[in-house]
């Protein structure tokens, strides 16, 4: 009897366990059948590609989106006046022609006839104008609203950020007919057409901005004009895109659809990729950096990318003012650490040392800018320059610091590595300064209250060298954390931008970069490579200039 009760208990336990295992036996078929099971109903068409994404942080209204989770989706479901090719060159999309007669102050845009939204409604220039006016209206809180600041009539604000007067549309937008409109800018910008492919400039269907309800509907299940249309959005779980039947543009979908699975952690996504439950992953988790090339073989992606990193030493810091001493110290620090070594050892060759101020995939990037030897490791020269600076004003026992945000695990290690080398080379004390949150760091940087140097990163919005200089080094630019103020640079940069000829423009940008090499308002570090991988179930995975896979070209085997 005594034995029996235990036998019963154990048997019951074993049964429960056996049942739970039995319940999962369908997955026992291994990795390949797991893929079919995981995608469930989505794969019934056979050619649906499963891709990685993060949950969009806003509704999918083009001017509202300012992060990649939403941007990835927008770029597949909408098409703008222009679009970017794989290599970053700008092509006409909805636009028939975009012309300027006065070096880029006023633009005339004609769009192709017969273009339609996914619900069949016609696409006219009014759809662009209305969408832009909505994005430019500060009352709407569009996070990408700054893209409209270049257009004449962008609303003015007082010191507290309140609107001066009322805003009833950008005066720089003038509709000529259903297929033609004119744009007037605040200042001449011959590259304005390049910006027009950015997602903030996408059109919105008629009526979608009329009421909060219509806007909500458009933002959660957009009517769109791109190669795909959004079929379902299960928040935090997945977004399903299917080919748009009304699309007749140049980049049609070559698969039966795309299902983006939402992840909060790319480690989980990476394991899904290894098990065959995910087809495309455009990110590699930190813990797999050293193994992903072996794990994935030729299905690993590791190539030059559009994300560019640097650190900034603000001019308002002691010893780093806009004078000879500041310049010498910046150059000394830049030459005091070995970028190549850190890229190789710390990042396993997944980053590439910077040779200029522009990411490697952007037209205008160069490894032969005059003066770029300041980006080379040269301890003797660094010591020499540092000593010269000390002769002007003694460094004493001060500590050199670089601030980073600790809420991302991506920065601590390299900041420490750079500071170690700088400290050793220059024989000074050098320490990291950790901010708990990115927003705290941005706050101090924006208010000009930093007490140390700070890390920074930049990703291109549109493929132009200007986009890596204007927004960061021009006097009143939003991301000018160093408070760099050099009229000579500004003049050369704007002159370069106003060149009609591509070659002349590139040459001009190189001249502007020469000035930056001398002043080092930011100290270039490295470009972040485009990393990722894909499964055995898909083919033709190519990564574009923005380090995003060209999803519409991926085919399912």
């Amino acid at each position, binding site marked *: 009897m005594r034995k029996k009760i235990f036998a019963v208990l154990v048997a019951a336990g074993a049964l*429960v366990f056996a049942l739970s295992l039995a319940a999962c036996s369908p997955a026992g078929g291994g990795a390949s059948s797991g893929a079919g099971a995981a995608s469930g109903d989505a794969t019934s068409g056979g050619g649906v590609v499963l891709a990685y994404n993060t949950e969009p942080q806003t509704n999918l209204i083009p001017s509202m989106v300012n992060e990649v989770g939403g941007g990835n989706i927008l770029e597949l479901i909408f098409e703008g006046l222009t679009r970017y090719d794989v290599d970053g060159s700008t092509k006409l999309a909805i636009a028939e022609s975009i012309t300027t007669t006065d070096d880029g102050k006023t633009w005339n845009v004609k769009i192709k006839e017969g273009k339609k939204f996914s619900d069949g409604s016609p696409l006219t220039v009014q759809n662009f104008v209305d969408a832009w006016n909505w994005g430019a209206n500060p009352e709407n809180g569009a996070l990408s609203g700054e893209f409209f600041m270049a257009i004449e009539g962008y609303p003015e604000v007082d010191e507290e950020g309140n609107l001066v007067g009322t805003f009833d549309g950008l005066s720089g937008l003038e509709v000529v007919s259903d297929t033609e409109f004119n744009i007037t800018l605040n200042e001449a910008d011959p590259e304005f057409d390049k910006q027009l492919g950015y997602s903030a400039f996408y059109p919105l269907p008629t009526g979608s901005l009329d009421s909060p309800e219509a806007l909500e509907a458009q933002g959660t299940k957009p009517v769109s004009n791109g190669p795909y249309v959004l079929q379902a959005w299960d928040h935090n779980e997945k977004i399903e895109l299917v080919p748009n039947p009304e699309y007749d543009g140049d980049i049609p979908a070559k698969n039966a659809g795309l299902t983006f699975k939402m992840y909060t952690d790319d*480690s989980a996504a990476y394991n899904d990729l290894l098990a065959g439950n995910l087809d495309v992953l455009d990110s590699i988790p930190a813990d797999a950096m050293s193994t992903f090339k072996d794990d994935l073989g030729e299905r690993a992606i590791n190539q030059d990318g559009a994300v560019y990193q640097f650190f900034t030493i603000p001019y308002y810091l002691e010893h780093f003012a806009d004078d000879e001493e500041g310049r010498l110290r910046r150059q000394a620090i830049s030459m005091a650490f070995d970028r190549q070594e850190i890229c190789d050892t710390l990042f396993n060759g997944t980053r590439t040392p910077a040779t200029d101020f522009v990411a490697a995939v952007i037209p205008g990037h160069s490894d032969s800018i005059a003066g770029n030897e300041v980006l080379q490791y040269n301890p003797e020269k660094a010591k020499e320059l540092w000593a010269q600076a000390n002769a002007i004003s003694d460094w004493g026992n001060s500590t050199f610091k670089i601030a980073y945000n600790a809420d991302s695990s991506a920065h601590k290690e390299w900041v420490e590595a750079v500071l170690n080398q700088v400290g050793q080379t220059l024989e000074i004390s050098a320490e990291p300064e950790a901010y708990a949150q990115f927003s705290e760091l941005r706050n101090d940087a924006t208010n000009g209250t930093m007490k140390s140097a700070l890390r920074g990163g930049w990703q291109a919005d549109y493929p132009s060298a200007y986009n890596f200089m204007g927004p960061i080094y021009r006097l009143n630019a939003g991301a000018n954390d160093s408070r760099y103020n050099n009229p000579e640079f500004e003049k050369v940069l704007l002159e370069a931008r106003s060149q009609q000829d591509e070659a002349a423009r590139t040459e001009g940008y190189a001249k502007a970069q020469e000035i930056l090499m001398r002043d080092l308002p930011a100290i270039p570090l490295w470009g972040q490579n485009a990393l990722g991988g894909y499964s055995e179930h898909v083919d033709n995975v190519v990564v574009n200039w923005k380090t995003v896979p060209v999803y519409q070209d991926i085919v399912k085997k």
Partner: protein
Amino acid sequence: MKRYVGRRLLQLIPVFFGATFLIFAMVYALPGDPIAALGGDKGLPPAVRAAIEREYHLDQPLLIQYLYYLKGIFTFDFGMTFSGRPVVEVMADAFPWTLKLALMAIVFESVFGILFGVFAGLRRGGVFDSTVLVLSLFLIAIPVFVIGFLLQFIIGVKLGWLPVTVDQSMSFKSMLMPAIVLGAVSFAYILRLTRTEVAENATADYVRTATAKGLSRPKVVVRHILRNSLIPVITFIGADLGALMGGAIVTEGIFNIPGVGGTMYKAIFQGEAATVVSFTTILVLVYIFTSLIVDLLYAALDPRIRYE
């Protein structure tokens, strides 16, 4: 009994106000500027910034912000996230996941923990006892993310027996591994707790009396030993439900579960008071209810305990 339950339920009111206000104040006191973070490296135009601040009442002092929030709650409006989704929707998305995960973990840890604990406790010092003691020590000592990653890699990626991450239908199959990982540590505690209690009660006088009266062994074990041994175990399980619901961040991350833990973690970092406070309030309520149920269960298990 009724009065006791009534009194306990009345306690909810001050706890509700206290918890919401405290958490609201703490989120308010968090360093950093949530709106600046929305803009990323680029920053927002000042007018856009001002418009967003007005929309979320961020330009108001703490107390006013809190009153706005309370006013919303009493009309079942839990506010909006910075991404413009109603918090109610976010909760409706996240809680089912976490609830299912926590319940599965609780069932797993209770069934196996008590079963193994009884078996080990009755045969103290035996082979089974020693084995599960070592096993449970391992489970307690190894951090949960190590267990999670190991299981995920071996069972999910290499062997392909169970899905690597959960699927959208919340299937039992895909939730099994996360539930086991989540319940692993508590399983070890329940096992050890049950084992000690059973071993101690097995030699108690009333057990000897029961056996002497001629009761069968199964009756003695289930009615006398187990019933008395379960009181501390039930307390633990009740408290654990609350902990599992809010504290599953690590497990949720590993298995890509869009549950409460991960959502709150993100909301705290973004300084989204409405989301953090709403989620925490629900968790506090869950915690209060489970502890009430646990207290009532005491009376059922031990006739000596009565509530007035």
